[in-house]
């Protein structure tokens, strides 16, 4: 039987884990012997057939930033982003698929070929970004059997490896994203309560604040720009990360700055750094407040805070959490690895649910007591036109049908009414988002529902949304009088720009490329 794997496709680092013969997840090191692989890509200049991924790409980046790609996860699902290399315009999905290809390839040379995987994504990723992630996996020749939220994966690993019970807050601050999840653990039974995330908060944002300090210091001394080219920027971004990591261990970090106006030494204290990242830290504080409110609990109700992600090594982050909750947060055994390890467990659970015969008895036995109840990541609704009680006017409004954080599987129904006499069609929109104002929600689909002619206004239309454990959403619109029904179904973000056929074609194209 083929190995079942979990992949953490991170903004800065990625990792792959497989389930061993007794259903325990294990990290598979890459060809360089490292347990995590930098999510960096470099298109070789000399040999355009070779694409470097990982540490080699990081090392080559300063030579030619134009041919290098980092932090591509921030652009996942962005249909305007393109990286132009030679004659090809690369999409975020294609670029991500190169990273996945490297992970698959390196793991495959150690074990058998890896096909069935679950890839993790930030909890706040919307359907389009989830779909883009799946597409990237397919393009890399993987069979993506599911998507799991990163904090959920971390919690899965934690719960199956520790004897815990109670309410846990998973605090995942990585390279590019920040997620918080509240969940209840009772032995190997895990119930997700809710998740919140900030899409633009992570290690790279802290690095940028240090780059700003470099630039400011240089300008103060020489009245000149430190950074003049992309090469300079790439270099100082790396230096900044170095300073940041040093400041997690020491009170002061020193760096030489070599600009065209002269060179200087800059000294950055932990205080300087903390002041610079103050507003970013405030965002993490607010997100914790928000999630506690969403979980309808207080800091005192949380029994454990679990740290995940490399950026949680920053002392002030740990300090603030201790202050807020009154006890020290628990540092996950390995903050960089637990997401991929949990994703592998999730892959095992998915496989057991969908194709139990394909799972070896050892793996099945290892996972037999693990039970996970996940929730809806977003609210789903439809556009309607109720009358405003104050102005008496019809207003276009997004009405939520399926609330965020409803445990899966779930189904919710609501009745709407036709607006005018003789209405023969209804434009139905399926939306994702929490706002009432339709300008602020994303439309996942818009369809026309034909209705019988010659009827007065106010005929009831029943709308039912259901969401199953495989993250497949099913929507029905039923005209109660005539019994006619319109059905719309989505798998995780079916509305992405790529059809499955396109994805297969891209996968074939990418297959020939050598990834090192």
């Amino acid at each position, binding site marked *: 039987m083929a190995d079942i794997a979990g992949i953490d496709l991170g903004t800065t680092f990625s990792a792959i884990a497989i389930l061993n013969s007794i259903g325990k997840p294990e990290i598979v090191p890459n060809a360089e012997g490292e347990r995590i692989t930098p999510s960096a890509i470099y298109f070789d200049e000399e040999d355009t057939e070779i694409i470097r991924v990982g540490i080699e790409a990081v090392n080559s980046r300063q030579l030619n930033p134009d041919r290098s790609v980092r932090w591509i996860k921030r652009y996942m699902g962005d249909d305007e982003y393109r990286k132009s290399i030679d004659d090809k315009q690369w999409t975020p999905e294609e670029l991500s698929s190169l990273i996945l290809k490297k992970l698959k390839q390196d793991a495959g040379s150690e074990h058998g070929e890896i096909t069935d995987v679950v890839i993790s994504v930030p909890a*706040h990723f919307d359907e389009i*970004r989830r779909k883009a992630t799946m597409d990237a996996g397919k393009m890399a020749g993987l069979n993506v059997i599911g998507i799991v939220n990163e904090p959920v994966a971390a919690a899965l690993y934690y719960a199956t490896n520790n004897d815990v019970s109670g309410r846990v807050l998973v605090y995942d601050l990585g390279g590019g994203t920040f997620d918080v999840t509240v969940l209840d653990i009772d032995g190997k039974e895990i119930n997700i309560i809710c998740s919140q995330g*900030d899409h*633009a908060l992570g290690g790279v944002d802290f690095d940028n604040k240090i780059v700003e300090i470099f630039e400011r210091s240089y300008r103060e001394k020489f009245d000149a720009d430190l950074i003049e080219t992309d090469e300079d920027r790439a270099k100082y971004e790396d230096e900044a990360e170095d300073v940041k990591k040093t400041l997690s261990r020491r009170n002061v970090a020193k760096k030489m700055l070599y600009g065209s106006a002269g060179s200087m030494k800059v000294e950055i204290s932990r205080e300087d750094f903390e002041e610079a990242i*103050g*507003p970013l830290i405030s965002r993490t504080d607010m997100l914790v407040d928000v999630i506690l409110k969403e979980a309808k609990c207080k800091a005192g109700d949380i029994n454990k805070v679990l740290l995940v992600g490399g950026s949680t090594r920053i002392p002030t982050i740990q300090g603030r959490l201790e202050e807020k909750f009154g006890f020290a947060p628990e540092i996950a055994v390995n903050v960089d690895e637990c997401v991929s390890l949990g994703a592998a467990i999730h892959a095992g659970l998915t496989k057991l649910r969908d194709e139990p015969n394909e799972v070896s008895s050892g793996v099945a036995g290892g996972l037999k007591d693990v039970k996970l109840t996940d929730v809806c990541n977003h609210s789903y609704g439809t556009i309607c036109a109720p009358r405003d009680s104050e*102005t*008496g006017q019809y207003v276009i409004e997004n009405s939520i049908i399926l609330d965020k954080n409803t445990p899966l599987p779930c189904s919710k129904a609501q009745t709407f009414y036709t607006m005018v006499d003789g209405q023969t069609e209804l434009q139905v929109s399926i939306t994702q988002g929490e706002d009432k104002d339709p*300008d602020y929600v*994303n439309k996942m689909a818009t369809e026309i529902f034909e209705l019988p002619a010659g009827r007065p206004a106010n005929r009831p239309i029943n709308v039912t949304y259901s969401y199953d454990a495989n993250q497949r959403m099913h929507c029905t619109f039923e005209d109660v009088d005539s019994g006619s029904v319109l059905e719309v179904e989505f798998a995780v973000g079916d509305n992405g720009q790529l059809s499955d056929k396109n994805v297969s074609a891209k996968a074939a194209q990418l297959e020939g490329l050598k990834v090192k």
Partner: protein
Amino acid sequence: MLEVILISIIVMIWICFGRTAKWHIAFLRPGAKRSESPGSGRFRCTVQLQKEPGGTEVFIVKIKGRVVTPSDMYDMDIQVLLADVTDGADDPKPVLGTVSQWQMEDSPVFCYRVHNGKIPRRELRISEWMTVATIRADYLQFPRQGRRKIQFVASLISHQSSAELVCAGAVMDYENAQTGYIDITEDNNQARVLTVRLAVAVADSEGRSNQAQLDVIRQWIDEHIMACQSNTGKLVIRDLLGGALRETAELIESNRQVDIESVGREMARALEVIERYNAIELCLRIAGQGDEISGRQIDILRRTAELLDIDGEKFRAMAQKLLPVRSGRGDYTNFILGITDDMTVEDKREQLNDEYCKWNGRVTSRDTTIQDQADEMLALIAQVRNDCVEQPCANG
């Protein structure tokens, strides 16, 4: 709103073509002395005003006299029409019906018509006053508020052909407590003039307005001209609003200020709820076109919203949508984020958390404008929260 538009149309038609309109002829008939018969048998009509137990006013219309029909077993209807003749019998104005059942077929003009049935013999004598219609005052809309002279015309007409057999009129004084439809149109136009004045005041609050702001006002005026059905109406509105724009601009140029208080109060009195919202939206749009939003502008906007009785949360949601995120000033930031002076530090945190949660949900919008706005909003919220922690929310 629909009623207001309809009434405006009617009044416009009335202003322009009133004298030739079909219904108009009906009001002149009683004076034509066509079907009068001599002596005490003359067909007559009278009206009394009564108050029902619930307080509703009703007009009781009665008739008496002699009626001659073309044949025995003649099938008849009873009809009562009303006209407002306060400005003289030669200048009657229609009375409108507020219930579709008591309206003319093709217009909202009040018309009471019921089937009476067959009259056995050709000659009918009604010797005592007989009630033929009880009309609720709240089913009527008069041209203006206050003391009115209302003419009632009762007639008997053929059920088949609608040919009139007899008719008689009676005029009574009536104290109308409701706003009349002409009052409303005048108020509407006045309200629009006031809205323009206010808009110019917002644009010019820093002593200069830019082209983009004036364009917004012009566009708003154009929309109102377009919305008017009749050509005459279009001209009236164009002159009115164009004039208001010019006058206000001149007023400001000569260094005198628009009295926001009185303009706002006047608008609150004259404008429907939806129009008040439209007016504040126009003001926000204009402020949003400015290079920077000044403290004075914020004060004007806030005060106007207050005067117009705009719901605070709705106002802020509109402001967040239409105004730029950053303007560099603490009071503006607080205004945009909904932070007020009377909030405790804890209240402020709660407010910031709510705003953060809201904008964090919008940041993944497919619309890049909204994405950028959300990104800026989040950065702003984070900055304010950061300042809050450092100096217990001293800035706000």
